[in-house]
């Protein structure tokens, strides 16, 4: 891996600012975090997208969509383990030293549904849901970038809010 140090530093600063703006935290161990960002940039050069540095990418973007950083599993792992699978992101508890950092078991299913549009449930209010952070928006089209976690448009899925979930009159 040979990633230009200026590119690495710039990416780190940007990622850190984005994380904090969205209520997330990068791992405060800077050497660790820079090592992972180096891995992300290596994967950007290798595959054309930010495949998770701690998982084996297929090289096919559609198949790897769920493990493009930030991955679909980050928030659940932050909740359950205090860190994402790579420990690039950590929870506030870990950040404040109230919880030890440990390695995180893989929750990505070995057998995954084939990539492609999923069938939409009928009836209700049509929304878009960010698969990474759960952000919902009621727009005709998903946003280009998730305003919360900065995941790109292709990470949004149709989400139908059943009318029964709405408060009555």
């Amino acid at each position, binding site marked *: 891996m040979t990633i230009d140090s200026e590119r690495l530093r710039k990416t780190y600063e940007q990622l850190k600012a984005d994380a904090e703006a969205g209520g997330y935290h990068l791992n405060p161990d800077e050497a660790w975090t820079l090592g992972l960002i*180096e891995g992300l940039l290596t994967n950007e050069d290798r595959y054309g997208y930010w495949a998770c540095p701690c998982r084996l990418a297929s090289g096919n973007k559609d198949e790897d969509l769920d493990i493009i950083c930030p991955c679909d599993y980050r928030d659940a792992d932050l909740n359950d383990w205090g860190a994402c699978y790579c420990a690039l992101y950590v929870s506030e508890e870990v950040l404040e030293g109230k919880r030890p950092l440990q390695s995180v078991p893989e929750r990505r299913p070995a057998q995954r549904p084939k990539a492609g549009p999923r069938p939409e449930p009928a009836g209700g209010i049509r929304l878009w849901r960010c698969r990474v952070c759960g952000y919902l928006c009621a727009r005709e089209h998903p946003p280009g970038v998730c305003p919360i976690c900065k995941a790109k448009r292709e990470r949004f899925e149709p989400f139908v809010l059943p009318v029964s979930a709405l408060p009555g009159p």
Partner: protein
Amino acid sequence: MEKPTRQRPLMYGLSTCGWCRKARTWLEGRFGEGGFDLIYVDLLPTEEKMRVMDELRKYTPSPAFPMVLADNECIIGYREDEYRRVFGA
């Protein structure tokens, strides 16, 4: 599932992964640089990658990295407690 049979520890890892870096450092501390084998799966040519993943599926239904194989042992993820148990401190 099969059990690996080998005297010399073998680590499968990813060159981009932080936990793999930590595992490598641990094994180097225990066995010295040349005291174990190391394969970075992400750096292998596609066909070889497939072959290795098929091989790893003999030991676990869902391979993840780092994966350290030793005699009768298959340790998945960076597990210092397991390394100590299997290899001694």
